[in-house]
C-alpha cells in the first residue's frame, strides 16, 4: 500500500469526525482561587489616583471611568467623564460591550474600594480584560487629589513633585477653591502665585 493511501485511510475518517461533531464554543477560562488570591495580593487591579488624574487632564481617549455606586450617589458627585454602572446592574446585557472589550481602560470606582473591587472580581472571573480599580476610591481621591497635604520641608524632591502635581491636578479637576484656601493659611500670599507656573507644567508633562 502506498503511503498516500495509508495517509488517506487515516485522515479522511478523522476529517469526517471533526466535520460531524459540533464546534466547541465553551470558554473554559476561569481563574482558580489561587490565581485570584495571587492577583489580589500583587494588587494588579489598582490604578493610583495620580495616574487617573493625569489621564483625565490629558483627556486620554483610552480612559473610561465607571462609577459603580448607585445612581443617586452618581448624580450627586462623579468624576469627570465617568459613566454609571451600579454594581447591582453589572451583569445586565446592556453593559457587556462596555466591560468586555480590549480597547479602553475601564477604571471602577466607588466611595471606598469595596464595591469597585466586587465589580472587578466579577468581571475578572468572567475573563474580561482591561478592568481596573481606582486605588483608595473616592475617599482617597478627595484627600490626595482635591485636597493634598503639603509634605514636610524635610521631604524628598519626589514628594514635593507629587504634591505639586496633585495640587495642580486638583485645581484642574475642580477642587481648587478648597486647596487654595488651605494653602493660603500655610504660606505667604506671594508663593502660590510663583508656584502656579511650574505646577501647570508638571501637570502637562509629569507622571
Amino acid at each position, binding site marked *: 500500500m502506498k503511503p*498516500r493511501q495509508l*495517509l488517506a485511510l487515516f485522515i479522511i475518517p*478523522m*476529517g*469526517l469526525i*471533526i466535520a460531524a461533531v459540533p*464546534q466547541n464554543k465553551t470558554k473554559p477560562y476561569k481563574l482558580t482561587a489561587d490565581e485570584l488570591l495571587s492577583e489580589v495580593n500583587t494588587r494588579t487591579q489598582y490604578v493610583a489616583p495620580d495616574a487617573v488624574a493625569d489621564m483625565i487632564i490629558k483627556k486620554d481617549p483610552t480612559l473610561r471611568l465607571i462609577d459603580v455606586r448607585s445612581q443617586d450617589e452618581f448624580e450627586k458627585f462623579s468624576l469627570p467623564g465617568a459613566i454609571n454602572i451600579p454594581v447591582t446592574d453589572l451583569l445586565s446585557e446592556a453593559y457587556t460591550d462596555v466591560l468586555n472589550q480590549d480597547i479602553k481602560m475601564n477604571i471602577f470606582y466607588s466611595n471606598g474600594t469595596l464595591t469597585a473591587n466586587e465589580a472587578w472580581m466579577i468581571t475578572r472571573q468572567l475573563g474580561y480584560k482591561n478592568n481596573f480599580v481606582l486605588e483608595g476610591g473616592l475617599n482617597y481621591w478627595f484627600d490626595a487629589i482635591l485636597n493634598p497635604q503639603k509634605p514636610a520641608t524635610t521631604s524628598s524632591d519626589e514628594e514635593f513633585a507629587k504634591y505639586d502635581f496633585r495640587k495642580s491636578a486638583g485645581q484642574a479637576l475642580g477642587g481648587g477653591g478648597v486647596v487654595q484656601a488651605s494653602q493660603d493659611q500655610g504660606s505667604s500670599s506671594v508663593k502660590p502665585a510663583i508656584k502656579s507656573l511650574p505646577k501647570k507644567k508638571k501637570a502637562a508633562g509629569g507622571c
Partner: protein
Amino acid sequence: MGPLAINELISENTNLFLAFVIGIGFGFVLEQSGFSSSRKLAGVFYGYDAVVLKVFFTAAITAMLGLLFFSLFGWIDLNLVYVNPTYLTSAIIGGIIMGAGFIIGGYCPGTSFCGASIGKLDAFVFIGGLFIGVFIFGIGYNLWDGMYMAKFLGSPKISETLGLTDGVFAFLLIIMALVMFWVAEWAEKKFPREEY
C-alpha cells in the same frame, strides 16, 4: 507554546528553551526529508519532485486535526491561539516575491539555514541574498510602509468567510490535499529527472 506561555504556566525562559528544542527538531526533520537540497525544493515548481508540497501539507493537516480535536476535548482554547493578522496587499506582493525567490534560489528562508547547517554553498549565498533583502526593506521602509500596512483585514479565517464550521472546512482541506498529492505524484511520473 502559545496558551501555556500566555497563562504563565511556564516562564518566558522555559518558553524560549522549548522553542529552541522544537526548532532543532524542526530543522532535523527538514534535513531528513531532503529539504537541504535546493534542486529537490525547486522540483515542486517543475513537477519532478513534490516533496515540499507533501511534507508541508501533511504537517498542516496534522496540526489542524490536532488543534481541532484538542479544542473538541477542551484541552486548548482556540481563541488564545495567535493568528497572524492579514494585510492583503503585502500578503499578495510578499507572496509573489517569496515565490520568485523560491524558484530562483531553490530555498525558502527556513530551508536555507537547513542547507547551510550541512555546509551547502548555495544555501550560504541564499542567506546572503536574504540579508540584503532584509536590509533594503529596512532602509526603504518609508517608501513602502503605506503599501505594507494597506488593506488590513484583522485575523479572518477562511471558514468564517465562507460561512462553514471549522470542522467542515478542515474536511474539505483534507480532500483538497489528497487530490493535490495525487496530482503531484502523477506529475513526478510525467516530468521525471534522472539525477538532481
